[in-house]
């Protein structure tokens, strides 16, 4: 099964990289962007046919390694 885990910074955690990207967009003349926060996307193939089991395994992966839950949130999507 194909799946995607998205890792983003928690609200309230300063994101200097996001700020720099925001500034770069402004200098490119791309207007109307209020703020940018950057994160990570993991595209994962799971050897599992059961959706719930795949989701559980990916949650474990995110908790143990993909995300640092001190500073980051994550979202697991099983795409099928």
């Amino acid at each position, binding site marked *: 099964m194909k799946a995607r885990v998205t890792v983003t910074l928690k609200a*309230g*955690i*300063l994101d*200097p*990289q996001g700020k*720099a990207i925001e500034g770069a967009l402004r200098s490119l003349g791309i207007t109307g962007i209020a703020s940018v926060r950057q994160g990570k996307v993991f595209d994962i193939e799971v050897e599992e046919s059961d959706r719930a089991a795949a989701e559980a395994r990916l949650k474990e992966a995110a908790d*143990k*390694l*993909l995300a*640092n839950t*001190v*500073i980051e949130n994550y979202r697991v999507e099983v795409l099928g």
Partner: protein
Amino acid sequence: MRASIIVFPGSNRERDAARALRLVCGCEPHMVWHADTSLPPGTDLVVLPGGFSYGDYLRCGAIAARAPIMDAVRAHAAAGGLVLGICNGFQILCEAGLLPGALMRNAQLRFTCKDVYLRVERSDTPFTRGYNAGQVIRIPVAHGEGNYVADGETLARLEGDGRIVFRYCAPDGSLDPKANVNGSLAAIAGIVNERRNVLGLMPHPENHVEAALGCTDGRGLFAGIAEHLAAAA
């Protein structure tokens, strides 16, 4: 005193740490490979050295924190053994959950390599007994991700329990925001765990132990550790 230095793929300050231990503590440290599962018997001090373990992939220290040797390091800390994490070692300790919080990209987004001033906040830990509380020392930093963050509750606990042991400061010891080299919360440069047997710090005391290099302010940390271990023996 028996010291073990953990070597990860991408560590690059392990020989600096070994040299400091040799010069100041007079001990010959063991190099322990990250894939090993046990520490040499009798290890008093574990050092997680600086560098770029696993190329900083995923997050700084994230992969190293899950290396096979880390269970032994965790057990050593749980038994009250000393653990010193310098720079990448501090990042690894946070990722491993041995210290709270996390180290993020420097606020100014640049890798910073220069001498900074640190205020030693307390002298009653195994790592700082070689200094006086309030003493200002000059120590080099070399990192791109040393911006310490933690939630409000964690910070309140660190402050309340006196677990912040080094802060970035001006040469006179005052907390000038300009001296906070990476934008760390509360100017935090180094913290200890609750039992005060695990220290993580971003600066490199191991690089200021020889007069030939212009400064010996780092010696106090290693001398303090040796003194603590001698007193405990």
